[in-house]
């Protein structure tokens, strides 16, 4: 990890008003059920499912490498003998850290309405895992396409999975339905990593596979990001 790259990325990401406004909106809406429960007795006092960890990662990691390559900044960065993998990991880790810190914020109001601490801790962990994994996915895609096209790729993939899910429900032929379901369940986690840990507090048994899906997805996309960054030909850059 390179401290200067981390600080530069931190400043770059947090100085964007659009990113900050979007992040504030996601945090606000995710904490909504708990804030309302402070005043409305009839609201259920339990952890609500929310995709905000992944969304925050999208906000901060979008274009994390692609925008840089489009702007030409790495050509100057790499005039120093800085290993590219350090640059990629430093930028991705910074985005993941910002998204993770913001992803746990909505659960603090949950402490005030009496939701058990273990459930809150598990929900926080799950959101952090999703934030880190989504950052890795976006970093991987961002190394392949320029600018913010990584968002378009991810949106396209998710629309595709939605259509596949629809087919899986509507198809009458059992075999075709099984194929659609199989494709969706095996490919989607590479693009939309999810880790639901709150179930553990309700007696769900531990799934090592769910954890390995997240870890291997993170590793896979980071290796892709490093490999693609290594392939870029940059004038002035040291080899």
């Amino acid at each position, binding site marked *: 990890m390179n401290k200067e790259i981390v600080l530069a990325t931190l400043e770059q990401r947090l100085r964007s008003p659009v990113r900050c406004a979007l992040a504030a909106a996601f945090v606000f809406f995710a904490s909504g059920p708990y804030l309302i429960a402070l005043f409305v*007795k*009839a609201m*259920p006092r*339990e952890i*609500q*499912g929310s995709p905000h960890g992944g969304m925050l990662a999208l906000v901060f990691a979008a274009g994390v490498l692609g925008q840089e390559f489009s702007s030409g900044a790495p050509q100057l960065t*790499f005039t120093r*003998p*800085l*290993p*590219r*993998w350090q640059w990629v990991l430093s930028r991705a880790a910074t985005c993941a850290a910002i998204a993770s810190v913001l992803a746990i914020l909505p659960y603090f109001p949950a402490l005030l309405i009496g939701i058990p601490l273990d459930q809150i801790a598990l929900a926080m962990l799950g959101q952090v895992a999703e934030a880190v994994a989504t950052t890795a996915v976006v970093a991987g895609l961002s190394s392949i396409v320029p600018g913010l096209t990584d968002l378009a790729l991810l949106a396209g993939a998710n629309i595709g999975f939605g259509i596949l899910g629809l087919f899986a429900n509507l198809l009458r032929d059992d075999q075709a339905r099984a194929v659609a379901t199989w494709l969706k369940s095996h490919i989607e986690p590479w693009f939309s990593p999810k880790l639901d840990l709150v*179930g553990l507090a*309700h*007696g*769900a*048994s*531990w*799934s*090592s*596979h769910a954890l*390995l*899906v997240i*870890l*291997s997805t993170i*590793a*896979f996309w*980071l*290796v892709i990001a*490093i*490999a693609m960054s*290594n392939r870029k030909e940059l004038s002035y*850059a*040291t*080899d």
Partner: protein
Amino acid sequence: MRPTESTRAMPLAFLVVLGLLLLARGATAWWEGRHPPETYDRVDWKTPAEALEVSAMHKKPILYDFTADWCAPCQKMKGEVFADKSRAAQIGMMFVPSRVLDRQQEDGRNPAGVDSLQQKYAITSFPTLIAVTPDGREVGRVMGYPGSRATMDSLMVFYRRSADFRISFPDSAPAPSLGL
């Protein structure tokens, strides 16, 4: 970085870790495909006594789930309705859910509270879902498992019906007791 090392080198450790994780991912997928983790409820079930108290306090109808561990349709309902995030949340919003687990087959007898509730609502088969007002009046029941969508549709109807009863339910009414 060592002076001779290229800035474009891919550390071997990353590839080794990725390879190991992918192997482990495949292995656990295979293992858990044969030994699937137990399905679980996302519904926050209360005991019948707790349900009466909460229902009286919040003027919410109670949803009793009369079930048994050996009953296959009950397990199917558990996996498709109670383990589903959005359905479980919907149930929690509409009702105070209370599970009444029959242990006759396993233990030879049921706790007194379970027997009295089964007799009160004349339970003849599992699963049976019964929606009741806070003062114990039945507003509807689902017998057997007709599928997740039909179950949720019925529960919505029961919830709307219970709203009519709720208007006539006085604020100061004491929590009804079933001798639990």
